[in-house]
């Protein structure tokens, strides 16, 4: 984005925010009391709906459990004020309680839901169970929590409805603004990256589980704060505010408003909750049916929710084109730094000792051992099914091996997940281009850098600092001309180059490349070869290359390993391998159907 465009974005947010704040300020003077009362509730519900949208619409975590955190916030108020009485210090105590309890609950739920390899369905079911457990606890605590009746009649802040309206309205406007800035910020793009390609994120050294847990905790804090305000204002708490029916209603409001748009869920919640307040009086028997039908119709026919419809219509009527794309941020050379995780005393960058991998009874890798030093470019060749890709996986993910040891820069990878192995200085490029389709080139690169440079929480940096090697790849492949283009519009070769640049942005000193030239033109291939040689010669990288193209292997490698049926058949210089008739025969099947070489 250019400066002007970003400024105009910011101006738009500020303008909208000011307008919203003005409506909040004027509201109590022009709106009837009933509407004010209804809005007071709906505004706080909308704040919770906003958290559902960030979790579900942006990050892809379908949650039914945000109500539980709302309930925790509300009950902190109800319990403290009922049992200890109201005072300023007790109000503070309740606030601390609500935040601490909700955050620790979120931590527990996150630990349960977001372990590596957990299915999204499982996370959803855990979030469904959470409010059920919380309400059951509230029910069974008898007079302490007021059981089903909840707590009522406690003293609270002596503040008029108008002021409450201003407080909660401002809260919602600010929250929406912050959320809006957050999801568009460098850090916020990570949510989309996680939604689109968790595996790539992990191999970029991003702990997806930890991020999701942190996000859930933040969402829990916001929901608890809303609950805190709600109970302080309404002076009543009841188990249903923590219940799963409320939790699912939030999802319905978000879906109807338009998930992944922030404004949609907020408006959706306000309209539906206030509307149902009117309708439950006028149409008590059918309003639930109407909401149900509307919900299903929207899910089936308008997956984006209802907000995009009037937007598109307006756009068509006024003939405004969709926002034009500017250019990306300025590219910069990153400060050279000591390679992370590089241990001085280790002679070899990469050491494998007796690595085996079994799939059931099938042994795919069988006792692989070799060493590779810095500045070495080691090619792994062998026919399809020889176990080359499995070998890459076993090096870069500690949990993959069945047996054996892998040392990266002297660090034993143990059973560590990929994002921890990255910290030892390893980078892996996948076989097929593995990128984030709906992000731009610049955003993808920024995410690759996030392990080394903490991304901004609320805005987008105007510069993008990359290490020399990554810059070379980008410039050489012309990607610097397309920094603001969505990755899905790139050509196959450009995607491959982008992924390579992303991996290089990690500043690894051990690089795993799985067929980096597949699908590239001759010119591109030559280019990649030059870059690889440069990386080993001038940057001291250790590169492990899986490649089919023997010409390419011959051009770039310093050493070749021939893999066949899970075993190392030959570990030799390029010349030796190329001249080996055996290799030719098993590798390409061009030769005779000789006896089994093993």
């Amino acid at each position, binding site marked *: 984005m250019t400066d002007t465009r970003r400024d105009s974005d910011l101006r738009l947010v500020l303008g909208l925010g000011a307008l919203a704040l003005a409506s909040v300020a004027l509201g109590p003077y022009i709106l009837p009391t009933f509407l004010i009362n209804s809005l007071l509730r709906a505004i706080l519900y909308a704040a919770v709906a906003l958290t559902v949208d960030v979790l579900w619409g942006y990050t892809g975590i379908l949650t039914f459990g945000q109500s539980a955190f709302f309930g925790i916030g509300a009950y902190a108020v109800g319990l403290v004020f009922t049992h200890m009485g109201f005072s300023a210090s007790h109000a503070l105590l309740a606030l601390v309680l609500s935040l601490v309890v909700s955050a620790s609950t979120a931590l527990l739920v996150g630990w349960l839901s977001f*372990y590596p390899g957990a299915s999204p369905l499982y996370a959803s079911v855990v979030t469904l*169970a959470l409010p059920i*457990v919380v309400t059951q606890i509230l029910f069974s605590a008898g007079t302490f929590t007021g059981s089903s009746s909840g707590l009522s009649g406690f003293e609270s802040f002596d503040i008029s409805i108008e002021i409450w309206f201003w407080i909660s309205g401002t809260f919602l406007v600010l929250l929406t603004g912050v959320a809006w800035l957050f999801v568009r910020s460098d850090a916020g793009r990570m949510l989309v990256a996680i939604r689109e390609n968790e595996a790539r994120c992990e191999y970029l050294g991003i702990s997806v589980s930890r991020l999701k847990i942190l996000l859930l905790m933040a969402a829990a804090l916001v929901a608890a704060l809303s609950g805190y305000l709600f109970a302080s204002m309404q002076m009543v708490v009841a188990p249903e505010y923590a219940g799963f029916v409320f939790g*699912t209603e939030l999802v319905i409001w978000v879906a109807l408003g338009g998930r992944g748009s922030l404004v949609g869920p907020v408006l959706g919640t306000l309209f539906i909750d206030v509307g149902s307040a009117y309708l439950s009086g006028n149409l008590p028997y059918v309003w639930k049916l109407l909401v149900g039908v509307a919900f*299903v119709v929207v899910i089936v026919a308008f*997956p984006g929710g209802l907000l995009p419809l009037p937007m598109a219509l307006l756009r068509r009527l006024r003939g405004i084109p969709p926002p034009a794309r500017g250019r990306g941020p300025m590219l910069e050379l990153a400060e050279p730094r000591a390679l992370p995780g590089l241990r001085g005393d280790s002679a070899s960058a990469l050491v494998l000792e007796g690595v085996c991998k079994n799939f059931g009874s099938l042994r795919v890798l069988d006792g692989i051992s070799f060493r590779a030093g810095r500045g070495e470019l080691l090619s792994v060749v062998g026919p399809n099914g020889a176990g080359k890709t499995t070998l890459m996986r076993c090096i870069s993910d500690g949990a993959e091996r069945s047996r054996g040891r892998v040392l990266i820069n002297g660090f034993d990878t143990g059973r560590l997940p990929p994002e921890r192995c990255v910290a030892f200085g390893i980078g892996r490029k996948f076989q097929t281009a593995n990128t984030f389709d709906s992000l731009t080139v610049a955003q993808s690169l920024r995410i690759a850098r996030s392990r080394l440079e903490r991304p901004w929480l609320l805005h987008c940096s105007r510069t993008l600092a990359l290490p020399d090697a990554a810059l070379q790849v980008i410039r050489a492949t012309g990607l610097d001309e397309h920094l603001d283009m969505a990755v899905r519009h790139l050509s196959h070769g450009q995607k491959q180059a982008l992924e390579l640049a992303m991996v290089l942005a990690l500043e690894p000193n051990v690089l795993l490349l799985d067929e980096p030239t597949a699908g590239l033109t001759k010119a591109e291939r030559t280019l990649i070869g030059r870059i690889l040689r440069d990386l080993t010669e001038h940057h001291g990288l250790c590169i492990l290359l899986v490649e089919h193209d023997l010409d390419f292997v011959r051009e770039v490698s310093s050493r070749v390993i021939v893999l066949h049926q899970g075993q190392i058949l030959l570990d030799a210089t390029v010349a030796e391998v190329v001249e080996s008739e055996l290799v030719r025969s098993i590798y390409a099947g061009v030769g005779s159907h000789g006896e089994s070489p093993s």
Partner: protein
Amino acid sequence: MSATVLDIITTAALLYAVAAGLLIVFGVMKIINFAHGAFLTVGGYAALAVTHWGLNPWFSLPAAFVAGCACGMLIERVVMRPLYSRPLDAILATWGLGIILGQLITLAFGREVQFVRSPLAGTMNFLGTAYSEYRLSVVLAAAVLAGALGLALNGTRLGLNTRAVIMNENLARALGIDSARVRFGTFSLGAGLASLAGALITPLSSVDLNMGVPWLVNAFMLVLVSGVSLISLGIACLVLGGAQVLVSTYLNPILGGLTIVVLAALLLRLRPKGFSRD
């Protein structure tokens, strides 16, 4: 003691009956069917209608099955089919369908809590304790159900096709199996089974709009821990249902109500495959 054993067995049988339909739909469509609770309710009201017409109470089982299948067919055609490529949306849509079905039922049958007559009143002496005849008959019904499902899935060509779609839908299609028809059949069957289970629990329960809700979440959990195998579902029902009875009996029934959910969540965290073999 023997009462506790019988409690465990009968509870497991009820859970099995309720969860079987959900499991089948989950297996083929890879979605959790939130409308399952509503289908249970449909079964309850089918049983109610049978009572109103003055038919033999046993007749409510086939009636419920047919009613459930019919609902399932309609819903699969109209709502589920466009959502095959969007599984998370499909889950949400089934949630909305649950609301719609429930509201339509109230429009037709009213909001009151209603009752159906139990086909078996009385108790019988079993292993030294007088135990509810109907509960024991539920064990029989669940066993018949499990047997019939097992036979249908493992003994018929249609069942083989269904298992093929469960295991690898694309490969099944490449072999000439019309997976859309398998999905249609499965969803309808799942709805029918849910409805059948609804009719099965009504003599022990009331017939009202929310009768399916308490069963729903437990059934989800059981299905998630059993993968897509009817056998591991049986094991899960016995183990987790048994835990529920034990906790209710020796600790506290309120904790008992949470046992399945909490244990299943922990189990999945520690062993993501749950009770399934590998």
